[in-house]
């Protein structure tokens, strides 16, 4: 685990750059993280981020794409448009949540 500085804040990240401390995340940070992977956040992105953050607080793990679609009500197709190519990873990255665990 390493500490890095983004938007003036020291944050803990794993080897792949995913934040590991839920409370170190902030809305400003989300904007910076998104920019780092080529995404400008819109209201539609925020809806996803808000769901992910809330859901993590309740469930203790990062929601899967399926869960964002069924429990969060956001179509999978839209997730691919908002966070192209690897939506599950990108959503988690921007939301400051652990990398989704690939089920073994």
């Amino acid at each position, binding site marked *: 685990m390493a500490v890095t500085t983004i938007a003036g804040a020291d944050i803990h990240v794993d*080897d792949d750059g995913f934040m590991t401390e839920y409370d170190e995340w902030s809305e400003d940070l989300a904007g910076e993280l998104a920019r780092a992977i080529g995404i400008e956040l819109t209201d539609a992105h925020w809806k996803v981020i808000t769901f992910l953050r809330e859901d993590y607080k309740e469930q203790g793990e990062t929601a*899967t*794409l*399926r*869960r964002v679609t*069924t*429990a969060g009500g956001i179509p*999978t*197709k839209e*997730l*691919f448009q908002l966070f*192209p*190519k*690897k939506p599950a990873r990108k959503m988690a990255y921007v939301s400051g949540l652990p990398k989704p*665990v*690939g*089920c*073994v």
Partner: protein
Amino acid sequence: MVKQTKRFIPAGVTKLDEQVARVDTNANTVHLASGEELMYDQLVIATGTSPRPSETPGLEGPEYGRTVHDFYTLEGATNLRDALANFTGGKLVVNLIELPIKCPVAPLEFTFLAESFFAERGMRDQVEITYVTPLEGAFTKPVASKELGDMLDSRKIALEADFYLERVDADEKKLVSYDEREVDYDLLVTVPLNFGADFVAESGLGDELNHVNVDHYTFLANGTDNVFAVGDAANLPTSKAGSVAHFAIDVFTENFLDHIEGRPMTHAFDGHANCYIESGHGKAMLIDFNYTTQPLKGKFPVPGVGPFSLLEETEMNHFGKMMFKWIYWNILLPGKDLPLPAAMSMAGKIEVDA
């Protein structure tokens, strides 16, 4: 492969051939589809998970069992056997739609065996094989993903990764992903989405895929103190595999005996899984891992027979898998002791940095 279940039901156990329609966890009652009700003091759910092709647009239809196949049911496997025997060449696409599925190595295993089958028939050069997966690589965890990816490479099997299937176009014979990528096939072998039993959702016990939300170490269902889910039915973050169910039950039994006596459950399951992967050409691999340790390379010692080789193709591993058929029916299923500890061991494994 098919045997009567009767001889495996121990004396003192009543087996009802009935469907469970719903569980009322407040009233401690199981409602059967027949209308009958069963009261319980403790409930153990073990209703597994099963393929649901109807969940993927375009998958089920007139081509199902003809050019579109699965091998997760007896009927599916039989149809596929015939289709493979009659296949004269072209594009074979093997597709994993989404995890979790029971036996997550099965689609790769099928791919290797199909490659071997066509090679033996002297028609390997007439078959283009592609493995299509929503994962980033051949498998979930880095070490195994690399080894298995190299095996696909060396067999000239193409890998289409990060492919999240939206629909099957069975008329045009193509897979279409959510980000509008397309993969053409002549023969499609897919693993449909796996869902737990409907009553799990009806009873408010499940996640999005009807797998029971449980404590990962004791299998106690969330929000209850007398309902457990074991085996594939539970949403554990490890493989849905017979080996996992086996190791888990060793831990569960001890805990359960304490629990019904009102004592705290002191044993914790580690997520141990142990799976052979048949790789064709008379060889197989073995993987052994748990919640925290990914499948690693090295040796897997077994008193009297081993060691087997981890993440390496050997004839010895294939022999182990073949022996297992007998072990399964005669030792494992009747609940006799197998000389393998429930908890994963690091003995023989080669460690890597996180």
